[in-house]
């Protein structure tokens, strides 16, 4: 894989009333595993089904029901681990996290506290060309999602929907390596991109399929470096955890608010209390959910219904062999093979299907031109219409056809844009459409010379002006192109006008 060279970004500094402060952020991302069936039952995971229609006896914890691990979900976790360059633990085990809540039918969540399936890995989070943060991943474990309590359907009753109960989640835990709200959001975006490339999570944050718990603390400049040197958390401030964030924008707002709240407390001589907080986007503030003293005692212990999960290195190797090209490698390749800029490479590799679209347009053509057309014309047009790349009316073959017509000089760039519009609306083969509509650039110098002679003859005053000021030759070019119905090749017209005017 190609290595990108980068520099670490500067940490965000917030100026308090008394001192400067820095932020330290760690994240726990809950990513719903893309799988048709739940983690320990055969029930469907389809989103948006009628309440309580995707529920097996196991999911609603009927007496005597037992969990059986879904091998595909394990493979997805392994695939994710490999995608984050992480250690895959051939031995892992499931533990019960015990607490009472109506949307948790078993009275415990099956998770992996002591022996997670994936160990240490890393994610490179690019913030600007050449500037990136390497975020260390501590672990990834598999666990069950809970159901959904509904409190607003009846004044006296609450309802529970177990469709989501038992759906597989990956909890991806980072080290406290993020140093600002923008970095945190970029980290989530990068992780989301990798997961989508891998096909292990659809990354749909609106549906809650990707949510983040954000740990925020503040420290004085220099403290973080002391922590790095010693790995002693004592150098860092007391952290608060902001739960269940499912928007990049809110993540940034919440971190910013929370950091300022902590700074205000500390500068007033107070102490930050370790606690769990919730972000209220309407009021733009975080609020205490429960303090450390009120924290649940989850009474974790190994789930006796499940044997330890032992997987074979060969099986892991098979998964590794089927890994797709990941964003960093694809970006580097696009820059090297197609000569696109860092910025364009980022845009083109943001989504897997867009990258594939670009590659089929660029294959055998000018990469930079293909990038310009894909980004400016196609993506611009798709965005305007609110369409995804999968819904594009102009196929890669059609766009490639348009670029071929430009390359052969048959149509001008201006014509190509018109042709793009026609193909967008009516479809068809670009070469045939261009021919049928007479969109053919005139490169026959004889025909152009005739047109130039006519214009010069009809505008003696303009000729004099242009001879005095050669910049005005452009006026003649415009007139010629107009006279030829836009078909004259502008390069040829330029040349002939200059010659005839004796410039």
């Amino acid at each position, binding site marked *: 894989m190609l290595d990108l060279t980068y520099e670490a970004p500067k940490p965000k500094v917030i100026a308090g009333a008394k001192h400067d402060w820095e932020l330290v952020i760690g994240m726990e991302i809950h990513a719903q595993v893309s799988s048709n069936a739940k983690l320990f039952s055969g029930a469907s995971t389809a989103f948006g089904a009628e309440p309580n229609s995707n529920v097996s*006896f196991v999911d*609603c*914890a*009927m*007496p*005597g*029901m*037992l*969990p*059986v*691990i879904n091998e595909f979900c394990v493979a997805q976790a392994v695939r994710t681990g490999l995608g984050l360059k992480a250690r895959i633990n051939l031995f892992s085990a499931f533990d*019960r996290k*015990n607490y*009472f809540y*109506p949307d948790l*039918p*078993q*009275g*415990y969540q099956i998770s992996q506290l002591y022996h997670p399936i994936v160990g240490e890995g890393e994610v490179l989070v690019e913030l600007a060309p050449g500037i990136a943060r390497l975020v260390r991943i501590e672990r990834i474990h598999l666990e069950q999602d809970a159901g959904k309590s509904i409190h607003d359907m009846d004044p006296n009753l*609450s309802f*529970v929907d177990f469709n989501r109960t038992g759906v597989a989640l990956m909890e991806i835990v980072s080290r406290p390596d993020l140093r600002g709200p923008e970095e945190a959001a970029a980290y989530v975006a990068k992780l989301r991109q990798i997961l989508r490339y891998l096909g292990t999570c659809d990354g749909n944050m609106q549906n809650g399929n990707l949510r983040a718990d954000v740990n925020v603390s503040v420290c004085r400049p220099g403290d973080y470096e002391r922590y790095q040197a010693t790995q002693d958390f004592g150098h860092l401030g007391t952290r608060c955890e902001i739960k269940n964030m499912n928007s990049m924008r809110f993540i940034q707002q919440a971190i910013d608010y929370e950091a300022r709240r902590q700074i205000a407390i500390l500068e007033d001589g107070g102490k930050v209390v370790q606690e769990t907080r919730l972000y209220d986007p309407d009021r733009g503030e975080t609020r205490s959910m429960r303090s450390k003293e009120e924290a649940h*005692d989850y*009474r*974790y*212990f190994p789930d*006796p*219904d*499940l*044997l330890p999960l032992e997987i074979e290195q060969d099986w892991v190797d098979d998964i590794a062999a089927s890994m797709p090209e990941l964003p960093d490698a694809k970006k580097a390749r696009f820059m090297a093979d197609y000569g696109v800029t860092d910025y364009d490479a980022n845009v083109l590799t943001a989504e897997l299907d867009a990258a594939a679209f670009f590659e089929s347009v660029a294959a055998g053509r000018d990469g930079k031109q293909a990038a310009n057309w894909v980004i400016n014309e196609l993506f611009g047009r798709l965005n305007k219409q609110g369409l995804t790349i999968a819904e594009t009316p102009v196929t890669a073959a059609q766009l490639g056809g348009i670029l071929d017509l430009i390359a052969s000089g048959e149509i001008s760039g201006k014509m190509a844009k018109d042709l793009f519009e026609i193909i967008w609306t009516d479809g068809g083969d670009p070469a045939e459409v261009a021919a049928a509509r007479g969109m053919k650039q005139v490169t026959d110098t004889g025909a152009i010379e005739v047109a130039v002679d006519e214009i010069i003859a009809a505008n003696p005053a303009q000729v004099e002006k242009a001879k005095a000021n050669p910049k005005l030759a452009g006026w003649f070019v415009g007139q010629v192109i107009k006279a030829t119905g836009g078909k004259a090749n502008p390069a040829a017209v330029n040349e002939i006008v200059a010659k005839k005017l004796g410039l």
Partner: protein
Amino acid sequence: MNANELTIAGARDALAKGELSAVDLTMACLAAMDAGTPLNAFVHLTPDIALEQARAADGRRGADAPALNGIPLGIKDLFCTKGVPSQAASNILKGFRPEYESTVTAKLFGAGAVMLGKLNMDEFAMGSSNETSCYGDAVNPWKVDDRKLTPGGSSGGSAAAVAADLCLGATGTDTGGSIRQPAAFTGIVGIKPTYGRVSRWGVVAFASSLDQAGPMTKTVRDAAIMLGAMSGHDPKDSTSADLAVPDFEAALTGDIRGRKIGIPREYRMDGMPAEIEALWTRGAEMLKDAGAEIVDISLPHTKYALPAYYVIAPAEASSNLARYDGVRYGHRAKLGQGDGIVDMYEKTRAEGFGKEVQRRVMIGTYVLSAGFYDAYYNRARRVRALIKRDFDLVFADGIDAILTPATPSSAFGLGEMASADPVEMYLNDVFTVTVNLAGLPGVSVPVALDAKGLPMGLQLIGRPWDEAGLLNHAHVLERAAGFVAKPQKWW
């Protein structure tokens, strides 16, 4: 002799020969159950299902009839049986009728068995006397004076029903001795198979790493027949072993010559009644007379087994029983104005669970809580590993089976332990819990009556997955003991 007094093997032969119909056999059992009401063994009767299954069995009679064709059985209330009340003898599951059939009962019915009804037990299988049941005490058919005796627990209803010939066999479950102790108290045979031999799917969980279902029968041969039908890999239970099920009945050769029987010195407890000790010695002599070699062995960590068990089992139970919260099924307390979800949990569980269950849930919650986890739960797990190693070492030394007493006494009177320290009751499991902790097969065989005239049993412990060999040893012991006594009918 009434048909209900037959053994499974005897009834099988009579059915095959056409001397008896499954319907007649079932009718005989239903009549005995009716007469046996004072024993409070059956708590839900299913005569309609029984007769339908019996008629179907009669249609299948012949050479290739399945193993338990037409055999009427009782099912412990811990097993979920489709459409039939299955409430683990607890008020919290009052009215619960599962929409599914446990793997064990499905296998038994698949083998042609007839379900007579559900059997009494201790609530959630927690108890050694069947006195914690929401249905009231099951009563031992054995009796020597006016006092009613316990049939043992937790499978007390199963033991009473088999001993009193209300059914030909019954399912039991054994977490710390719940098959073997009641079998010993009622003069019948009960085997707890190797952990993983029998599926736990559809059996209400008590302590998942210890629970195993097994048969309770009148003879060792019957146990072999019934165990064969209950066993086998179940993909729905991750702890179920993917191993072939041997023909247990065919293994009953009666030949144990040259086999080594271990006598563990640590089981000779202080204050052990002389009668039990004498019985143990006599059992060893019987096996020796049959050609086995008797070897003194040591299982040094035995004394830590009971405390470890009473940490691990409640820990798992506290978590397993969390699902009984009144939200989805079973009992839900009536709530007062302004009561919230926590009130609902507290009231539901306070009303639904009996005292012993509450005690164990609290113990389990305590030993798993932050700050105590290592001192209790983790230490108990380490002890468990040492106990298992004790057994591994003696089996590696060539021991084929281990002989111990099954219980520290014969059946005691119902209510007698009511005011005792709960630990007194827990001591009933002292010879049996090691087997659960080590995941081994263990069988209780009736050997003699004590001076009062009550049955006493011995336990044989086998190598993992060697139920076949274990049952053969039990078969030899049973034959040598010639235990044929039956309780005198007083009900």
